[in-house]
């Protein structure tokens, strides 16, 4: 048994409650315990049974005539809640009505206040959601604009398209280079790129006037279309496998792909 229950039972409040000796506030406390704890309810039932037994043990026959008198009055006096008599206006008690209206008004005010609080929270949430959606929308619009530009670029009449397909050193390598001498711009589309050891990378070179010039490292994590460095007078594009971070000069022995432009 919980300590709280044991302490409560030791107060003797339960016995006093059965005898009707408590103040309303104390009665409310006892009723709360009875409702919450089956152990208290059981003791409460036992005390009631005990009182029932005690009073029966001290029973005395009621003098004759009392029952008849009571039953006669009962015949003339139906219980209050089934009374058929209409209430008299003069005896109508407005206090409960006023109290009820006050309670109703209070409840309504609280409801309104509570409702306003809820609305404010809802508006704040909606504003936050709106800001998020707006940001997302702007981001999508930007992406869409970029894609439009890329599409325009690769569909431009002066843009040439070259396939850089890997040799036996990287058979899965497949990148498309878009080259536009008019716009002086280049772009790569990475279709496939094999995984290299952590200490290696793919690097793109342009052959300009017999010299291999660095155009940059191709990362597998790059977007589908990647802007790349443009060099005028490039004769070919070449991809080599280089140490991580790239090299100043290509390792020709590790050439993976090349295409003349």
């Amino acid at each position, binding site marked *: 048994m919980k300590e709280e229950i044991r302490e409560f039972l*030791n*107060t*003797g409040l*339960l*016995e*006093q409650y*059965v*005898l*009707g*000796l408590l103040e309303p506030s104390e009665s409310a406390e006892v*009723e709360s315990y009875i409702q919450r704890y089956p152990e208290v309810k059981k003791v409460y*039932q*036992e*005390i*009631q*049974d*005990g*009182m*029932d*037994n*005690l*009073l*029966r*043990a*001290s*029973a*005395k*026959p*009621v*003098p004759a005539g*009392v*029952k008849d*008198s*009571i*039953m006669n*009055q*009962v*015949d003339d*006096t*139906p*219980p*209050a*809640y*089934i009374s058929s008599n209409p209430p008299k206006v003069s005896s109508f008690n407005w206090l409960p009505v006023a109290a009820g209206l006050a309670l109703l008004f209070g409840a309504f005010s609280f409801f309104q206040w509570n409702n306003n609080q809820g609305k404010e929270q809802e508006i704040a949430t909606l504003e936050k959601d709106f800001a998020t959606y707006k940001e997302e929308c702007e981001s999508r619009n930007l992406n869409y604009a970029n894609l439009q530009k890329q599409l325009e670029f690769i569909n431009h009449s002066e843009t040439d398209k070259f396939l850089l397909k890997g040799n036996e050193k990287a058979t899965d390598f497949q990148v498309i280079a878009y080259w536009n001498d008019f716009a002086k711009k280049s772009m790569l589309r990475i279709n496939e790129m094999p995984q290299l050891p952590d200490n290696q990378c793919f690097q793109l070179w342009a052959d300009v006037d017999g010299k291999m010039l660095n155009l940059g490292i191709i990362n597998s994590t790059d977007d589908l279309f990647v802007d790349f460095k443009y060099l005028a007078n490039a004769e070919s594009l070449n991809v080599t496998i280089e140490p991580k971070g790239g090299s100043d000069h290509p390792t020709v022995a590790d050439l993976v792909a090349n295409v003349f432009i």
Partner: protein
Amino acid sequence: MKNLAKDIGDRLRKGDKVAFEQLYDRYSAALYGMVIRMVKDEDVAKDVIQDSFIKIWKNASKYDPQKAKVFTWMYQVTRNTALDKLRQVKNRGEKEIQIKDSNVYNIGIAGINPDTVDLPEILHQIDEKYRQVIGALFYGGMTQQEASDHLDLPLGTVKTRLKIGLRELRKIFKDPLVLTAFSAEFANIFL
């Protein structure tokens, strides 16, 4: 027995007059036994029982079976009616004594003296200190504070003795021999 009492309580709440009469037959003697010990006057006791049962009938819809057994509720109504009657008689008696000797209800303050209460036999089976407190509260019509003053005991002691006394009685009533004897005695009342 318990289900029957619950059933009668539910029917009473609905204004069932037969249930009310059954309750009277079942409990009026137990309540009268308490009341006559409190007021010590047959006429007053009869008035108290009559007023109490009329209140029980009129307020039947207020009875909440979730809160108390129907007999507990009836006991509380009757006890309060008896206390009201005692106060009323006492006030009337004091006024009339100032004018002339009164033969209206020969009770007054002595009527709630637990020392003169004819306690039921069963109470003599528990220790006197518990019997005194239960006698004062059940049959003397006293509040706990009045019992504390009258018995010259701290209020806390009165509360503790009430608790222990009722538990002692519970033990006695759990004895099958006592229950059998008691049931036979109780049954005779209605024969």
